[in-house]
């Protein structure tokens, strides 16, 4: 028989956003319990493992060689006819900077949370919410298969792409087909990758998404694909597209796969609501992934910090209400909502482009030194060479 528990702040899910929220809630004085259904934090990995690095300091993460594989100089974008656009790391967005060992990264963040005083329970899955007078006051859970309850005035849903907790709590996190990607990745050794770059291949090789090569060391890389669900119809399409791409690229076709990673990625506009009485959502569970790049770690961690601080404050003031949680809602929105929305608009457009148009866009940008990489600047550069291509993008100019 597992004992029922009570705590100030309950965090469901021990990924980066959950650990970050837990850590900052504990640092702000709350009693925090974080539960994780798996037996090991960070494993199995469900990630391309690329991330930017300029945000780490803001949330108190110290870079460490325990989880950094490679520091890249930039990104290379390949059009369908494999014209190349090089982008410096600073301008390349949410997925370029470090290539990391995600399981080690997640463990480090959980260690930081534990050191801040957070209690952690593994093999513990939430199975539903406890509702009293219409408010969420905790969760029903199973630990090593045995049912018990955890009560808390504040519950933070950080259960990743599945986003079940939020939906139980009545927050609509459902996605349209065009706003999600199905992804598959092989970690491959014996490949001819360039450790200076994260590579992205656009066009019909990956409908509505891209193929990525993120180098993890000499001869070792994550080779993955994301495809938009509205553009695929059969079964196992991501695997078929990825296998076809690899077969067509001699630098990778001789590679040996030593790990298979899969998962869903939201490429959605920002949610209208991420809080309700007693509940806040954070990270992938709150659909905070950048819809253009598919990168979610930075946004999850940045929002996680704000979420944890607001949770502790709500406990202190005894105000775990939807109204009080607006502080979190406004906080994360001020930080990156506009970018999410803009990048979602850009994604909506990009996933309709033909291979010929992709070729023209990348060709127009080749050799052009952009001061700042933005959708606006890119379109201006394309407009100068191929005005017909930018006609349909006038809303962005």
């Amino acid at each position, binding site marked *: 028989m597992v004992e029922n528990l009570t705590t100030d702040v309950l965090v469901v899910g021990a990924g980066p956003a959950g650990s970050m929220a837990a850590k900052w809630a504990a640092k702000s004085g709350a009693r925090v319990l974080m539960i994780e259904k798996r037996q090991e934090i960070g494993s199995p990995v469900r990630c391309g493992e690329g991330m930017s690095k300029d945000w780490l300091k803001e949330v108190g993460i110290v870079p460490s060689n325990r989880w950094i594989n490679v520091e890249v100089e930039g990104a290379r974008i390949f059009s369908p006819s494999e014209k190349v656009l090089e982008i410096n790391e600073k301008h390349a967005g949410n997925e370029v900077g470090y290539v990391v060992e995600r399981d080690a990264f997640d463990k480090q963040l959980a260690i930081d949370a534990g050191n801040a005083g957070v209690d952690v329970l593994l093999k513990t899955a939430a199975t539903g919410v406890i509702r009293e007078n219409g408010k969420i006051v905790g969760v029903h859970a199973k630990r090593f298969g045995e049912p018990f309850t955890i009560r808390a005035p504040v519950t933070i849903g950080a259960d990743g792409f599945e986003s079940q907790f939020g939906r*139980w709590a009545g927050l609509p996190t*459902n996605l349209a087909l065009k706003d999600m990607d199905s992804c598959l990745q092989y970690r491959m050794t014996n490949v001819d990758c360039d450790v200076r770059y994260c590579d992205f291949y656009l066009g019909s090789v990956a409908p509505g998404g891209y193929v990525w090569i993120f180098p993890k060391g000499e001869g070792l890389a994550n080779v993955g694909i994301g495809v938009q669900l509205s553009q695929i119809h059969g079964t*196992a399409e991501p695997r078929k597209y990825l296998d076809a791409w690899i077969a067509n690229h001699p630098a990778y076709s001789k590679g040996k796969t030593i790990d*298979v990673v899969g998962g*869903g990625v939201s490429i959605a506009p920002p949610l209208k609501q991420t809080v309700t009485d007693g509940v806040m959502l954070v990270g992938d569970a709150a659909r905070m992934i950048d819809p253009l790049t598919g990168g979610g770690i930075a946004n999850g961690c940045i929002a996680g910090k704000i979420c944890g601080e607001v949770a502790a404050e709500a406990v202190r003031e005894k105000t775990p209400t939807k109204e009080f949680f607006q502080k979190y809602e406004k906080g994360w929105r001020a930080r990156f909502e506009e970018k999410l929305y803009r990048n979602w608009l850009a994604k909506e457009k990009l996933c309709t482009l033909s291979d010929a148009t992709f070729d023209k866009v990348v060709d127009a940008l080749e050799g052009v030194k952009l001061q700042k990489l933005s959708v606006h600047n890119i379109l201006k550069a394309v407009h100068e060479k191929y005005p017909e291509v930018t006609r349909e993008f006038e809303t962005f100019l």
Partner: protein
Amino acid sequence: MNRETGPDASDLPDPEAASGEPLSGRASVRRPERALPSKKHLHIESSGQLCIYCGACVGVCPLNCVYLDETRITFDEKICTRCEICVRACPVGAIAID
């Protein structure tokens, strides 16, 4: 799933909305009245031969009726409408309808 704690019918969104526009009707998430396509069977191969336990099927289910343990995936036959979104979402083809 505990009947008292799990999602009740009134919480569930319309699965049809998931294949078209985003669920904008955030206020009215009503379960549609209609018969299940009972002749179709959904099979989730989660013994490990195909399934990689990535959870894509769980996150895409518009009715939140697919569940992932560490090494087992199940779905609620009574709620599932065989919309087949999880079939598309599975990156390795471990879910089939017949």
